[in-house]
């Protein structure tokens, strides 16, 4: 079947074989250009798009005006405390507990994720129980449980490892680490299990047929491929953990939120200090997002979907170049 090719000529067209040609309107080239001329294409107008943009910008301007003229809000206090020494220490503590909890969560997640995919029903059952218990109860409850461990076990005696009174051993940091890390591990094990399931069984077979052990196959073939699927979820959990760690303030661990809290208890500049904390959380989560992008790219080797990846990269690179030229 012949279609219109824009030349205005349809040689050898026979009505009986070409349905579209029969029903199509007569073709009229737009004057001057003769046989190679084409029609001008007029884009559709979007008046409402414009109106919506104006409305939203107006509302935003109102909000900004309101904030700027809120004389109750002491912006100078916010500015003053932004780089306050104890606030900065709080930022550091937040980053520390986030990193430590995510590492513990990742380790537990890999172990229990592999256990849940095991052929051994006991291992599978225990892993299920772990996920069930720690995913099914509030994190704040778990934090308090670890913090108050001394109430049930006054002394901890693990020969050769630790020995002492629980009150001394379980510092606020350790309680927070156990609470967040073990909780994260429960979520992480499900993420890992999903990642393992996403690797086609042919990969394992190919490795085994090379004479590889199961351990080697998991470590070199399955996990690296699973991580490509797992990473976005880990990034998501890390961002969530960053903010979740503010709950550690309730077990007297002085991270960012707890620190600003204790400052406003003293000076009553509540909103100003909450804004300080908010600004730092935003900075940290923005940095983490960038880190996530690069880590994902590293584990994505061999999986590039050509153009799509290149586009993201181009946008980032262009932004970086622009920043650099501005700095110069």
């Amino acid at each position, binding site marked *: 079947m012949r279609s219109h090719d824009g030349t205005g000529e349809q040689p050898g067209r026979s009505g009986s074989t070409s349905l579209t040609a029969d029903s199509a309107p007569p073709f009229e080239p737009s004057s001057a250009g003769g046989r190679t001329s084409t029609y001008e294409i007029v884009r559709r107008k979007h008046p409402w798009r414009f109106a919506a943009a104006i409305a939203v910008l107006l509302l935003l301007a109102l909000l900004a005006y309101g904030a700027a003229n809120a004389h109750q809000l002491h912006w100078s206090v916010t500015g003053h405390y932004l780089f306050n020494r104890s606030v900065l220490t709080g930022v550091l503590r937040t980053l520390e507990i986030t990193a430590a909890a995510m590492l513990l969560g990742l380790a537990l997640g890999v172990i229990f994720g592999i256990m849940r995919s095991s052929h051994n029903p006991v291992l599978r059952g225990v892993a299920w129980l772990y996920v069930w218990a720690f995913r099914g109860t509030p994190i704040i409850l778990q934090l308090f449980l670890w913090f108050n461990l001394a109430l049930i076990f006054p002394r901890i005696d693990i020969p050769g490892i630790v020995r002492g009174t629980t009150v001394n051993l379980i510092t606020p940091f350790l309680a927070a680490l156990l609470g967040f890390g073990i909780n994260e591990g429960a979520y992480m094990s499900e993420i890992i299990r999903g990642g393992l399931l996403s690797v086609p069984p042919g990969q394992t077979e190919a490795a085994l*047929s090379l*004479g590889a052990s199961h351990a080697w196959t998991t470590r070199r073939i399955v996990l*690296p491929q699973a991580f490509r699927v797992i990473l976005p979820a880990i990034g998501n959990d890390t961002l969530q953990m960053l903010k979740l760690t503010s709950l550690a303030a309730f077990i007297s661990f002085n991270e960012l939120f707890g620190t600003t809290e204790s400052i406003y208890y003293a000076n009553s500049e509540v909103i100003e200090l909450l804004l300080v904390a908010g600004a730092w959380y935003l900075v940290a989560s923005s940095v983490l997002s960038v880190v996530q992008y690069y880590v994902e790219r590293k584990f994505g*080797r061999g*999986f*590039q979907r050509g153009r799509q990846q290149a586009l993201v990269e181009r946008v980032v690179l262009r932004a970086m170049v622009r920043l650099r030229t501005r700095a110069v």
Partner: protein
Amino acid sequence: MPSDRASKEGNRTVVECHAVVKSFASVHVLRAVDLEVKESEVLCILGPSGAGKSTLLRCINHLEGIDGGWIKVTDQIIGYELRGGKLHELSERAVRRQRGLCGMVFQHFNLFPHFTALQNVMLGPVEILKEPRGEVEARSRLLLDRVGLASKVSAYPSQLSGGQQQRVAIARALAMNPRVLLFDEPTSALDPEVVGEVLRVMLELAEEGRTMIVVTHEVGFAREAADRVAFMFDGRITEIGLARAVLEKPSEARTAEFLSHVLV
């Protein structure tokens, strides 16, 4: 090739299957399969899907255990050890060592997508056989060159066509220096225009005297490359013989009917 055929009769036996039985749950996939493949012989296995062809290959390198009979590659019973009149399942370590006897090429290539072509070929010898890296790399480059992919050593599988991926997979199998190559429908997942390049590589391997068992639907390849052809139906080898004889004058009605469908 045809002229060598007679000489392979006297060769050493590389693969021997005796009364091999295999079932998945209540489905009998292999019902007493007997088979013998000699050194540098090429055997093509043809038959309808579900006949047990792939399962037989997977049993030969113990990706699947068997429920009866035995399989020998060279002089070793695969996956089991004869002790006190019984076949005891071998340890994982021993099974791993035996897998080196067979090189497997899969229908869907199963290249490792996070490694380059060269890394895919080198991985086994370097990390599993612990051979020196420099030596393996030189050998792997030669192998990739032999399958016509010298320019693609640093390409990832996703950057290669199906035909190219399958040729890397063949190089990967060869790098382990196996005694027998097992091909599981190596061209079934390929676009028609690249089937030829893979078959050409396989033909070269056959000509250089590799021992090969090829499960395939490519009757043309079987006619050209195989010394013998076996037909499988419903878990049994129903007909086996010299390639030309079986393909041109099958003695079984089922074989003739299958061939008439495949050849069209």
